[in-house]
């Protein structure tokens, strides 16, 4: 069996974006004048890399350089415009912590909802309910509506549920941006175990020390191109050098 988890060759992604807000009259006008109401925007250009099973990869780059788009293509959420993509292990990705949560529902109901979004069933979640609530520090608030919680508490809840995922391929897209120090310490234990495991992991973050600690390799994306790839420390050093200059 192949040891390759993901193989990407010459992958490019183009979006067609609207030139203006579309209304019925504007659409009619464009159709009559035979004008296009879209323009091309290339987000990724000829991206090539591969990830072996068990590898921990960091993707770094400025905001808007195409990190999230690349991850969404790997997930199968977006289609590629051109190139070759092979995904041999189905990934589970945490993009934004509020996705799948509902403010009107209680914390417990949100655990069920959020957990099933990430492939866990009610039985599994019931077994791990106390663990999740303890990790999130929300045991006393378990029957409160989610809308009564702060952003930080909501993020702790989402991460605590996501950490229970048994997937062999996990993606974290700037998932620890707003966490407080106490929860960050709790997360350390999880990420240390993850780093030592045979699971494949891709992380994006602006926290370079975090990436250095848990990732072996890194890719530096710059305006949709791979600027550099290789050992995590080397790539991050170059990136920081560039950003500092």
């Amino acid at each position: 069996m192949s040891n390759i988890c993901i193989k990407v060759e010459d992958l490019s992604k183009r979006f067609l974006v609207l030139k203006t807000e579309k209304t019925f009259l504007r659409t009619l006008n464009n159709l009559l004048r035979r004008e296009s109401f879209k323009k091309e925007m290339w987000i990724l250009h000829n991206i090539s890399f591969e990830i072996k099973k068990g590898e921990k990869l960091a993707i770094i780059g400025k905001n808007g350089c195409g990190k999230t788009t690349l991850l969404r293509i790997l997930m199968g959420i977006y289609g590629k415009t051109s190139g070759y993509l092979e995904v041999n292990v189905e990934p589970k990705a945490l993009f934004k912590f509020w996705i799948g949560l509902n403010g009107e529902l209680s914390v417990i109901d949100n655990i069920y909802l959020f957990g099933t979004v990430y492939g866990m069933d009610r039985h599994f979640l019931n077994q791990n309910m106390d663990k999740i609530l303890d990790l999130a520090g929300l045991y006393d608030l378990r029957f409160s509506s989610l809308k009564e919680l702060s952003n930080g508490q909501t993020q702790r809840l989402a991460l605590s549920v996501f950490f229970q995922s048994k997937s062999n391929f996990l993606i974290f897209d700037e998932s620890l941006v707003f966490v407080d120090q106490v929860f960050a310490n709790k997360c350390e234990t999880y990420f240390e175990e993850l780093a030592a495991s045979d699971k494949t992991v891709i992380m994006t973050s602006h926290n370079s020390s975090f990436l250095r600690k848990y990732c072996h390799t890194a890719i530096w994306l710059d305006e949709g191109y791979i600027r550099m790839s290789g050992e995590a420390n080397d790539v991050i050093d170059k990136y920081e050098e560039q950003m500092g200059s």
Partner: protein
Amino acid sequence: MQDKVRRKIGFSKQLKTRLGRLFIRSNRHLFVELVRAKFKITDHNSILGILWNIILPISTMVILYFVFRSTFEHQIRAYPFYILLGLSVINFFTMATSHITKLFSSNREVILNSTISREIFILADIAIPIYKFIIELIICFGFSVFYGFFSVKFFLLIPLLISYIVFILGAGMILSLIYCFIRDIEHVWFIFCRLLLFITPIFYKLEGLSFLMRKVLYIFNPLVPFLISFRQIFMFEDKIDMINYSYSLLFGGFFFILGYMIFISFENIAMEKA
């Protein structure tokens, strides 16, 4: 370990993969949780709760009955029930299509950030309207028994109900795609749904119209054959027009397949626009 290779694949294989994925365990669990959440939110902080589902059609029926009874009551037996059944069929169509139309915008964040089958969201979106429609049909069933219409022909209701639901799913899927490109469709659809009250024989009889108008409504308003079939099952002791009934079943199935094929072909482009 779940291993999977995604490559460029043909349409039929893509359809097979999608349907296979739709029924995997994790998607079934998610569907149950989404529906459970929608039910909890629907009746959240509501005192009357489920009663609201009954109040709207009954109150509309009462108003239409008092306005039109002098004109139509002598032509139509069990006239209040006739109106109620018509309203229930139309309300279900209006409510369900309105829910599904905003599929991509209301679930945008989850769809953009996960690989959950979009069909799961469509089915979850239509679950509440189906539940409300079934409550209304139960009331209609009560009326049917009360007026002495009940007979063995009720077994024909299940295929018709399924066909009507899949027809609405097909229409909803097409609308959800159009909504991503042209937001005005929401207003256009709102007006169309209002007009449906008048271009569908809810409070009048189709037979009361001219031959030309009858044909025009039958051909261009897809709800008419369905409503005729629902009425024949619920209201008339022995008359079931099997041609119209079969046409309703086939049309529902055909429109669902058409809607689903269009949905599969354009959903990725639509999602990028949502």
